[in-house]
């Protein structure tokens, strides 16, 4: 049994190397004129509002999950639309002389960015396609906590801006994996109250490491 399983693993491993190589001679060198490519997204964002997030969540990096679609043109231009989501529960706190004190009252933050990016893909290699882009987003933000009235909770949406750069690794004719770094700036949500005001932090954006699985050529 163990020998069979080992053999199976080796076969899969071999196939994973062989498949990209075999595709090089087909579609990689020849992207379609226009291609609509859906994708799934997982990212980890290191928020610019470090002190705020550290006080409430005890950390500054939070995961986002989402998906979207990309319209890619043969000339290298592309347009992405991404919808992602982040939800985390921390605790209400206060801050004195740079020190944070948690109060144990649960607080939940939900952020749902809808982002549109335009950019350029560099076909430098059949298996590796670097790209850069910039865009605009609409960021929905919701903050609720125990023992709060509706007035004290917050639900709002603001516009933000972003730039991104990374590369797509072609895993096969119809499958790609992207890794990029995205910088986002989202003013207007933080800084008017709460810990963010205390910490003088007014940007809900940050630097995200994003990974996407793209389906399509």
């Amino acid at each position, binding site marked *: 049994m163990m020998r069979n399983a080992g053999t199976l693993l080796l076969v899969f491993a071999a196939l994973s190397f062989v498949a990209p190589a075999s595709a090089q001679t087909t579609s990689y060198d020849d992207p379609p004129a226009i291609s609509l490519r859906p994708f799934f997204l997982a990212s980890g964002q290191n928020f610019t509002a470090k002190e705020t997030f550290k006080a409430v969540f005890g950390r500054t990096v939070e995961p986002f999950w989402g998906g979207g679609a990309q319209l890619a043109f043969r000339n290298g231009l592309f347009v992405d639309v991404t919808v992602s989501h982040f939800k985390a529960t921390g605790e*209400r706190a206060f801050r004195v002389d740079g*020190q944070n004190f948690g109060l144990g009252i649960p607080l939940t933050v939900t952020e749902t960015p809808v982002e549109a990016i335009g950019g350029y893909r560099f076909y430098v290699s059949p298996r590796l396609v670097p790209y850069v882009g910039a865009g605009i987003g609409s960021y929905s933000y919701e*903050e609720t906590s125990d023992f709060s009235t509706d007035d004290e909770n917050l639900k709002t949406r603001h516009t933000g801006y972003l730039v991104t750069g990374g590369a797509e690794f072609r895993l096969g004719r119809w499958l790609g994996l992207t890794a990029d770094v995205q910088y986002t700036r989202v003013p207007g949500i933080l800084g008017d109250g709460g810990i963010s005001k205390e910490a003088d932090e007014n940007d809900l954006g940050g630097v995200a490491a994003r990974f996407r699985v793209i389906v399509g050529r």
Partner: protein
Amino acid sequence: MRTYPARVAVLAFIAALTASWIVRGQTAANQSLVVIENLGLPAIDEGVVEDDSHAPNTAEAIRRRALGAALAAQRTGQGTGRYAPGRVIVKFRDGISTTGRLTALSTASRTASLRTRPSYADFDIVSIDPGEDAEAVARTLRARPDVEYAQPAYRMHTQFKPNDPLYTQLQWNLPLIDLESAWDIQMQAGSAVTVAILDTGVAYDNAMITATIPAFFDENGRQYPALGRVTIPYSAAPQLASPGRFVAPHDFIWDTTTPLDFDGHGTHVSGTVGQLTNDNIGTAGVAFNVKLMPVKVIGSVWDDLFGAPNEGTDDVVARGIRYAADNGAQVINMSIGRTGPDNCTTNSNVDGCAPAVEAAIRYAVGKGSFVVIAGGNDFEFGNPTEVVAEIAARVPGAVSVAAVDRRAVGQTGGHRCQGTAAQPDCHAYYSNTGSWVELSAPGGSERGFGRDGFVWQQTLDFRFTETFLLEPSQFRAPRFDVFNYIGAIGTSMATPHVSGVAAMLIQQGITKPAAVEAALAKFAVDLGAPGRDNTFGFGLVDARNALRGLGVAR
């Protein structure tokens, strides 16, 4: 026939054993007052009773103060100065030998001698002739390089203005600091927290007291007859006492472990901190599940008449503070104080300042105790500097508390005063103002609201305790087993509001005294000039805001 004497002998032996056990249970070091604990009938709770004898500035109130002064003078044979005669508090620098200390003392006074260092003190008490000027001796001592500080034993007093009870609208003061919402957040209301009440004692125990009441002269020279040896019933306040409620009681006026309240002030203050609540009886307290540590550091008229060996001076208070900190108090409520010079901030080692108390406060904060101090009631009497409250302003982790009155209630947009934002109109008329004021809390006032403007709690029924205010022919022994709800005003009443909220905050996990202070100040409702001001400090303490803290963006 032969067994009868044997039975008598056995019974006599048992009786003797019981008597010796009872005597061993007595905690009084001074035989002029004998307290047999856990003996006595339950208290009599008279509810709210009209009692017009406790309005501020009535003849009775003035008499009470004057009588206390007269008794002190009779006891000491000296005038009732600002300090106790016959002793000086001295802190020598580390490493000074006994010989060195004695040499230092000899330069200051020919009669100076070093007493045995008292418990819970990092200073020495130097005895001098009672006729000597203690301030002059202290000045000479503190000029020496081997002396860290020296000061007379200044007298402290409670910041209390009692008044008469009323049934209606008893506790406007608790909603004012948004307590109902705070209780939603903090259901335990400080159950794991100990609040020390440094005051006139607390009615925390049932006991039978035996004391000798001597003849005395009142402030008008009228002689009151000696009552001789009397037995006095004492009961725990029904709305304070519950199993496990009181921890580490200590009496620095009598040097015992039974700090019984013969005045009523400490019991009233304790009620505001932690009156039993949600039991369909009486009034509510702020942090109604806290443990209370009664520490008696202020004497009363009855303590004087019973012959207490100590009075509420700086050294006694300093020891009480250290005791509370050493025995685990997370909050120390000091509804007490005294006035003094206004230059202690720059140098506390001068006449009138309280370096011994300051050192004790710093020690307590260092041990993790949050210290809350009354801001003083002398605004209309020249608004002098409150020396102990002023210390609080210099120590992160200790706060001084001013009083607001009922005009702070129910204004639109939060708990704002009547009047304009720039000139708020809820400063309690008696509450001192000054650079040391850090927070405000409800202290009440009869002006504009009459008896509806007081702070109400259960305490000893003064009609049964203040028999010294009766005519000499009617003078009788007091009883301390009758309780009712008394309306009182003063920064003494404001202070326990802050202590209670602090206890709830500590229960919430904020244990550093400086952080507790910062939270209370940060989340106070700003009154008066924006930011801190000399009237309201950072503003009116707000329990809900403090416990709830801040979110990310709200």
